[in-house]
C-alpha cells in the first residue's frame, strides 16, 4: 500500500501519492466503452454507406456521392447537436460518435452555440474552429508535405 508521510521528501510523497490515487480511482469501463464505440461508430458508417449508395443510384460519380454523403451527415450532426441530442449519444458512444465526420461537425457546432452570447464574430465565428481549426491545420499541412514530397520524389 502506498504511504505518504510528511517526513518524506516531496518527490517521494508525490510518487507514493500517485500510487495511492491509482489504487483508489475507478478504472474506466473499457470493455463497455469499446463495445458502444464499435456499435455506434459502425452504425454511423452504415448510415454513410446508405447515403453513398443512394446518391450513386441517383447517378452521381463516387467522389461526388462521397461529398454529398459528408454533407448530409454533417447536416444531421449539426441538427442533433442543436437539439441537444448529440452529447447524450456521445456519453455512451464515446469515440464512436467523436471519430466519424459527425463528431467533427459536433465539435464545431457545440462551441459556436455556447459562445453565441459573445457575438457573431468573436463568439460564433471564432469558436466554430475550436477543434476544427487544429484538425484542418494538421490535416492540410500534412497533406501539403505529402504532396511536395510526391512532387520531388515521384
Amino acid at each position, binding site marked *: 500500500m502506498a504511504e505518504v508521510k510528511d517526513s518524506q521528501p516531496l518527490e517521494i510523497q508525490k510518487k507514493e501519492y500517485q500510487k495511492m490515487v491509482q489504487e483508489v480511482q475507478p478504472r474506466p469501463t473499457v470493455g463497455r466503452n469499446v463495445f458502444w464505440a464499435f456499435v455506434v461508430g*459502425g452504425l454511423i458508417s*452504415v448510415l454513410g454507406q446508405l447515403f453513398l449508395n443512394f446518391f450513386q443510384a441517383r447517378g452521381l460519380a463516387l467522389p461526388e456521392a462521397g461529398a454529398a454523403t459528408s*454533407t448530409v451527415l454533417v447536416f444531421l450532426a*449539426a441538427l442533433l447537436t442543436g437539439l441537444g441530442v448529440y452529447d447524450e449519444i456521445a456519453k455512451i458512444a464515446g*469515440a464512436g460518435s467523436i*471519430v*466519424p465526420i459527425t463528431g467533427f461537425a459536433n465539435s464545431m457546432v457545440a462551441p459556436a452555440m455556447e459562445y453565441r452570447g459573445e457575438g457573431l464574430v468573436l463568439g460564433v465565428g471564432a469558436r466554430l474552429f475550436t477543434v476544427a481549426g487544429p484538425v484542418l491545420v494538421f490535416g*492540410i499541412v500534412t497533406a501539403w508535405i505529402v504532396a511536395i514530397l510526391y512532387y520531388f520524389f515521384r
Partner: protein
Amino acid sequence: MKNMIFLKAFLVGGLLCVIAQLLMDLTSHKVTPAHVLVGFVTGGVILSALGLYQPLVNWAGAGATVPLSGFGHLLAQGAIGGVKQKGVLGAFSGGVAATAAGITAAVVFGYLAALAFRPKG
C-alpha cells in the same frame, strides 16, 4: 452478395472508433478528443500517402471514408492529384479542393445551427 458492403462498413467504421476509444481510455488525460481527431486526420493523410488507405476504402466503403481518417485520405489524394495536374501549385490547392464540400457544409450548417438553437446545458 451486394449487401456485404454494409457489413464491411460496419466492421471497419466500428474498429476505427475502437482504436480511438482505446487511445482515450488507456492513455493519460492529456489525450483529449481534439487530439484524437487531429491524430486520425494526420494518420489518414500518412496512410493514404503510403498507399495503404485506398485499399481500405475499396473494401469497406463508407466504413473507411466516414471516420475522420477518411477526411485525411481525401486531403492527401487531393493534394497529390493536384501535383499531378498542376505541379507545385497543386500541392497548395488540391487538398482543400477535394474536401471543400465537407468543410463548407460544416461551416455553413455549424453557423446556422449556432444561430437557430440555444444550448440546453
